[in-house]
């Protein structure tokens, strides 16, 4: 299997910089794009040819939250057979978020920020399965 393509959606700049470094250092991904808002990511999804396999998605974002983004993702026309797997990123794991995540089949995992090499390998393991 080729290396997965990744979207990273988070409104916090420094977090994006850090995740950029971690993802780059891991060398596990074919290409990755970073978006500072969910709307940007949605626009990109409808125009891109390189459809992502995996989306790291922040929950708490202004204007369009992670949950809103997931709703949009479900409602839009399918561009490809397989939907991207979503990994939710949150600053603090709450049972409320975990319960809510059960309602979205796209969500593969809910992780506490920040991403670490071990978390990335965990995600990749699940993605391959």
């Amino acid at each position, binding site marked *: 299997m080729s290396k997965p393509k990744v979207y990273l959606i988070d409104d916090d700049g*420094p*977090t994006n910089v*850090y995740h950029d470094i971690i993802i780059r250092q891991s060398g596990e991904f074919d290409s990755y794009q970073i978006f500072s808002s969910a709307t940007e990511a949605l626009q990109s999804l409808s125009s891109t040819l390189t459809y992502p396999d995996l989306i790291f998605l922040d929950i708490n974002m202004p204007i369009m939250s992670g949950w809103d983004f997931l709703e949009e993702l479900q409602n839009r026309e399918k561009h490809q057979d397989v939907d991207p797997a979503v990994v939710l990123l949150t*600053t*603090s794991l*709450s*049972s409320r978020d975990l*319960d809510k995540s059960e309602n979205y089949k796209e969500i593969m995992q809910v992780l506490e*920020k*920040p991403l670490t090499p071990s978390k990335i390998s965990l995600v990749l393991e699940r993605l391959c399965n």
Partner: protein
Amino acid sequence: MKDSYITRFLDSLIVNESDIPVEERFKLRSLVLLCLAINGLAFVLVSVQVLGHYKDESVFAMLSLGLIGQLLLKFSRNYDLTVVLFILSGTGIMLYNVTTTGDIYSYNHKWFVPIMLLVNATFSRWTLPYLLFAIAVQCYFWMVSPKWHAESIGTATDHLVDNIALLVLVFCFLWIYRKYADMQWDRIKGQRQTLESQKLALIESNDLLQRRTEELQESNQELERFAYIASHDLKTPLNNIISFSTLLEPQLKKLKNPEIDLYFGFIRDGSHRMNHLIKDVLEYSRLSAEVESVEALDLNATVAEINDSISQYLHDRKAVVEIQGKLPTIFANRTRIYLLFKNLIENGIKYNQSERPEVVISCQELNSQFELCFEDNGIGMEQEYLDRIFTMFTRLHTNEEYDGTGLGLSLSRKIVENIGGSISVKSEPGKGSKFCIFLPLTLIEEDSEKQASLPV
């Protein structure tokens, strides 16, 4: 409309007529009238000697009528009229005797009067006057009257003295009774008013209490929401500090500048401590903010899971966590119980200077609850600190001595209280501490209760 003399007379026979509603009064007046009629009729019949040969029977019939009237009045719950009825029929008997034979004690009805009085005394609100009167009548019949009778037998004075004495007794009683009844009535009225005003005050203060409770709950929820949002938002910049200092650390180490290393150490440790603190505050506020899902939890498995997650720490400290016997399966929230057990186990090992730190977990069934105890061989605590340790941000040690946020035990207490339990601690410096959780038996899954070898 002004009442007529007749109604006023009838009303005056009803004790405390002013307290009886107007629509009731009509009914009571009718009853009084009926009573007067019964007695009047008896009086007339006896006077014309129609019943002359059947005196005892007629008296008995009258008393029976009076009794029926009384029973009716019991059902109407007006005891006062009962008294009126009795007095009327009683007066009737006296008059009847005076006018016919003038010989009251020679008939069997001398027993009826005290017995009737005693019956009334038992049922009535006016127990004391009835009893007194019954005793007085009895005394008269048995002691006074026979003596006089023996002295002046067969004379006209004899009958006159007898009957006048009895009538005086009746009217004395009437007067005393009226006074006593009025007094009692006033007292009861006063009590009722006091009760009424107390009731109103109680309702008012109850309303106030409820309002205050709601306000308090609201502000409490607001505070917890605030704590949640604040700590959640605090985590993002803190995460950045931690993340970038982790990236920075190896590069700074290369500079081999002890000052930089020291300062950097402060930043790193400070941010980690803050991270723990925020995590705990978040956890605490979540306890109230979130609805918990409940499932059957095998506590033995929970302990094993915790042992697994802190296995490195246990290994480093050469510590052991032991279960004495078998722990039950309970219905509770997985995350909360995990957190609670982890807090108590980690505390037992953290505040411990023994070569081989030990935490022993045991379970015991008490009356309506069960007790889960976590006993350690740690440093223990002075008696005076035991009340304080469950309070938020209370710490007995500096961060240099023992790392911590001062939230662990208050979190634990809140978890326990949320599921209807309580937590207590026994401790002695140098000997260790014993934390005991008391939980309602209803939390235990029945099957596990049978399986678990709970020492009783």
